[in-house]
């Protein structure tokens, strides 16, 4: 069964990982712009990273029959320095015109600071101005619940953001209901230690249903697994969930959300 990896940081992965994902049925990957594990100290560093996302990774994925899409932004960790972040934001509009770009992301908060919030709001504004989808990063661990609420307020208080065009990622048991209740899409990130395990993701699906939910591996430079989505499918199958439910979560739902961008097209 084919699946879509809707949040994978492939710049951190080897080419062998692309091969393994293709063998497991992955037909498309969407890759949000994120923190590289260290703070970049020049706009040029971001320019080169955005080129990697829009030029190099699509070519690398194509060798394995995988279509590569991406999102452009300055991430919340580096967004904590507003002056520098604004210089990066200035170069983003040109990249939003690239054929594999789906929207602005992953924007959000990290430590729930005033500086992060300022840059989040400015990037929401950028997305609205350019009619782009939004992919949201929610904070880690103890900061998640409060940060998720602040982000949703920032999005909804404007009055011009359609929550159906926003995916709020890294939800867990204490945030998923509020996100879905407000009309947003929600992503569950499958991580071995933080965020959500395959078993807990299956629990959440059983409790909250399949509407506006997807699963992703994130598979970044940290301890993560590029095959987390197919492993979660195995967990669902093991529990007796139908092929239709599994397809809804791992292909149809990401396809539906991402198809709101005209750049997201998959062969029939």
């Amino acid at each position, binding site marked *: 069964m084919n699946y879509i990896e809707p949040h994978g940081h492939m710049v951190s992965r080897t080419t062998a990982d692309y091969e393994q994902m293709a063998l497991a049925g992955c037909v498309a990957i969407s890759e949000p712009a994120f923190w590289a594990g260290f703070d970049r100290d020049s706009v040029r560093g971001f320019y080169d990273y955005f080129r990697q996302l829009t030029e190099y990774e699509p070519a690398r994925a194509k060798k394995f029959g995988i279509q590569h899409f991406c999102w452009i932004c300055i991430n919340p*960790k580096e967004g904590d320095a507003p002056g520098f972040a604004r210089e990066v934001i200035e170069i983003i509009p040109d990249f939003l015109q690239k054929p594999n770009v789906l929207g602005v992301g992953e924007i959000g908060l990290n430590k729930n*600071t005033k*500086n*992060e919030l300022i840059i989040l709001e400015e990037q929401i504004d950028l997305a609205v101005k350019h009619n782009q989808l939004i992919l949201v990063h929610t904070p*880690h661990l*103890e*900061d998640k*619940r*409060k940060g998720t609420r602040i982000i949703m307020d920032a999005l909804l208080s404007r009055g011009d953001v359609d929550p159906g065009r926003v995916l709020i990622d890294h939800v867990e048991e204490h945030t998923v209901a509020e996100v879905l209740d407000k009309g947003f899409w929600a992503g569950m990130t499958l991580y071995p230690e933080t965020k959500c395990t395959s078993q807990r993701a299956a629990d959440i699906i059983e409790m909250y*249903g399949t509407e506006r939910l997807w699963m992703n591996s994130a598979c970044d430079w940290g301890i993560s697994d590029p095959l987390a989505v197919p492993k979660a499918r195995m967990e669902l199958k093991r529990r007796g969930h139908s092929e239709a439910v599994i397809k809804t979560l791992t292909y149809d739902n990401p396809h539906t959300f991402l198809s709101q961008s005209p750049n997201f097209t998959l062969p029939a």
Partner: protein
Amino acid sequence: MKYDVSCPLSYGEIVDHYFLEHRAKLIDIAAFLDRLERASDGTPAHEDFRVTALRDALALLSDGQGERAKRVLAHLSDDREALSETAAGTKGALGAAPESSK
């Protein structure tokens, strides 16, 4: 939102599938708490807030109420309303809220 869909597995199947894995995780927690008592510099007068949060969270597992995962996550969340200006020097998360947040 409510619990709309139950787990397709029977009670016995859930136990058979998952018991050993979670037995191991429980023993890992016990061993972690034991390890703290064997620390090379002894146990501090004031326990680390993360360990205190973990001990308190354990009580939620056996209070007879549901939604344990959600309540444990809420217990470990930082509820302070004020926002700091910057994250300089504090970019990482710790996994539990400082005691001042409760």
